[in-house]
């Protein structure tokens, strides 16, 4: 057993867990944050993507102990005071989700993508960067649309803030 402490969605947490506990199970089972999902067992589907120290990671591919001391952001921590993050709002406006199971990972990947590329994102770049997230419902059409819309809005908001 290991005692693991980290910051999750801005709150300091500390839990005892088996050494072999994956970060995704720490988040789901120990912290009861069930928005992060497990869709495969080979680190392919991306349903478990969270942000660790500001970067998107598949939380099934690291041990909880490896995340000791890190800042973790899960889907539950993205919206501020019940107001959807622009990426979440864009997924809703563009019907970028159906069953919702891949959605948390998709949204966390999309936020990371927009952080890295900003308004320079184009369809091909979005599709290439979604390679690690599998959706079986949408055919990706509206997910791509949603991410491009969010990138544009966030870019515009960023420009406004800078002016």
């Amino acid at each position, binding site marked *: 057993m290991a005692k693991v402490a980290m910051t999750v969605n801005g709150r300091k947490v500390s839990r005892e867990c*088996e050494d*072999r506990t994956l970060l995704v199970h720490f988040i*789901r089972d120990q912290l*009861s*944050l*069930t*928005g*992060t*999902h*497990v*869709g*495969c*067992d*080979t680190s*392919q*589907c991306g*349903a478990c993507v969270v942000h660790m120290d500001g970067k998107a990671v598949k939380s099934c591919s690291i041990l909880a102990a490896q995340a000791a001391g890190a800042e973790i952001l*899960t*889907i*539950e921590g*993205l*919206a501020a005071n019940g107001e*959807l993050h622009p990426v*979440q709002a864009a*997924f*809703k*406006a563009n*019907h970028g*989700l*159906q*069953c*919702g*199971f*891949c*959605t*948390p990972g998709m*949204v966390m990947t999309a936020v990371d993508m927009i952080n890295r590329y900003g308004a320079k994102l184009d*369809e091909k770049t*979005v*599709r*290439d960067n*979604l*390679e690690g*997230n*599998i*959706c*079986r*419902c*949408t*055919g*990706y*059409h*509206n*997910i*791509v*649309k949603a991410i491009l819309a969010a990138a544009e809005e966030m870019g515009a908001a960023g420009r406004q803030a800078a002016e």
Partner: protein
Amino acid sequence: MGVEGIGARVARKEDKRFLMGQGRYTDDMSVPGMRYAAFVRSPHAHAKIRRIDTSAAEDMPGVIAVLNGKQMLDDGIGNLICGWMIHSKDGSPMKMGAWRPIAHETVRYVGDAVAVVVADSVGEARDAAEAVVVDYEVLPAVTDAVKALEAGQPQLHPEAPGNLIYDWEIGDGAATDAAIAAAAHVTEMKIVNNRLAPNPMEPRAALGIYDSAEDHYTCYTTSQNPHVARLVMSAFYNVAPENKLRVIAPDVGGGFGSKIYIYPEEIVCLWASKRSGVPVKWTSDRTEAFLTDAHGRDHVSTVKMAFDANNRVTALKVDTIANFGAYMSLFSSAVPTYLYATLLSGQYNFPAIHANVRAVYTNTVAVDAYRGAGRPEATYLLERTMETAARELGVSPAELRRINFIRSFPHQTPVIMNYDAGDYEASLEAAMAAADWAGFPARKAEAASRGMKRGIGMSCYIEACGIAPSAAVGSLGAGVGLWESAEVRVNAVGTIEVLTGSHSHGQGHETTFAQLVADRFGVPIDSVSIVHGDTDKVQMGMGTYGSRSGAVGMSAIVKALDKVEAKARKIAAHLMEADESDIVIENGALKVAGTDKSVPWFQMALAAYTAHNLPSGMEPGLKEGAFYDPSNFTFPAGCYIAEVEVDPETGKTTIVQFVAADDFGNIINPMIVEGQVHGGIAQGIGQALLEGVHYDPETGQLLTASYMDYTMPRADDLPSFQVSHQVTPCPNNPLGIKGCGEAGAIGSPAALMNAITDAIGNNDLTMPATPQKVWAALAAGN
């Protein structure tokens, strides 16, 4: 239509919880005392179980119970069954072998359950499952359905000699043979429809909770039809009587057919909960999903399409062998018969059709309905053959289809179906215009100048949704009725709850169904809640599959709304001392036409519940239910066009454009309908280009049991799609809608394969058209 009514692109009410990580799926459920199940599964495709030694496992940390199939048998838990009776052409009933939830004598596919461990944690349960020692006598296995019919092959079930489940036929064999003999041209093909794994992103899961004080069971499960699950678990598996069994399907992460069926695991969790005295949860991992979720397709067919001198089809003859896997899953028998062969007339006026279908046991997991279920197989067979015939006859593919289109309705096909409405030419023209078909030669020449092979292909599909009416499907062998139920509850403050027997696992019912109510009463959709997926809340329902929730589920809601409206009008007329026939409902109020008299919706509702001033003799309250049984199937149809470029150096296919033109009848929420089409097309493209389940033919080991081996379509495999709708309203339901959930998966594979074979100039190509296969076909064709 209003901003929230029928036809409006309303953003989904359910989205916020999913986007904020607050969806509640079965694996998210947790109850006090809950423990975890792990299954011991057969590593062999076919074997006798000599002995199971659980002693080491029982001593492992955290283990509460290790249970086996013999105990389950002793406790009276029944066999899993197929609920649709098919009779062979000799009149004999289908040969159904016994399927135990946990095998205790023989295992018949890799993944067959042989024991279950209940432990304090998932890790401890899995550790202990690995410590269970099973002594097997390994038997020879057969995975290929054609081979399984041959003499001398391994035999799966004593009930089914020769591994043959049924040998069924439909249509007029003599007339078909005579027309083929007299034909000016006959196109012959062998058509293989590749085996697929449905792969909803949420793996299956079940939580069984036994309450010993009440002798009552609760089951949370990943089901598309919780009421059917309760019915079958109660009536056939003897888990508990219906009043002692509550089934809840909370948020469900996709299904595509694979979550229709009642699997061993949910039965085991309920039974194990009683046996071990703790709530038991099981969650599949992806490997288990590949091993144990019902697969789809897996047909091998030969086809003859006969033409007269004017290129009119005179007859179609089909012989199909369908792989059913090791056991007959819940609806498996209906898929290659009434959901497949009855659609072999396509969009065409065929005078004669004959189809023969043999269903076969093999040492593979069960095969059942997967998005489209029989209709993709029929469409692929017809549209590949039609395209091939056009090439052989030297006619354009569009022209050959036009010559043979059905143009007057209703149309009785030679294979049961009576098409009610359609305009196939309209979808063909819309698709060809959107794809700029006329401009293709120039694009092909331009591609050739870059060394690329460009091809174009079309597919004109028809499908049948909302299988019905119940009496008709009953006469064809169905074990259930295929109606739907609804209840509309108007609360005292005017808010509305709609209880439906349909189940949403991504289809957006919470929005679309609410739009119906908003449209009818002019109330905001936020004041309407859709309740589904819980047998304690909704009395009975048939669930969601076969694109039935629109045509059948929403029709039931309309019927209940009619009753609510009738009573609301009476109350309003009484309150305003007006004649009932003068009441109009608009913008959330009941008004007397031509006057300024008006009662707000909520005030009418309150009056229904205070009951201080109701018409004489009227019961208080405002709540109405309805069961709706359709009078016919609905028949969505459309035309899909794919344009591809093949790189002759690598054989890699790139989809340059994909066009869908669909007729779904009237549409409630176009945004959601388009999303259904996108998703269906992606699965169809997956079948055509990427996906295929492979078993080792000797050992029966599943070679494609992870996302490292089974190629799921990813964002960079697909283009954006061009979709459009043509509308011929369905005359047989109150909303005029047909169903849109499966069309994309039905229509797209043939369009892709027609385009690729057009590009490479070699028609000898099977799905999935991987770069390796395309490259080889290109080399062989030159």
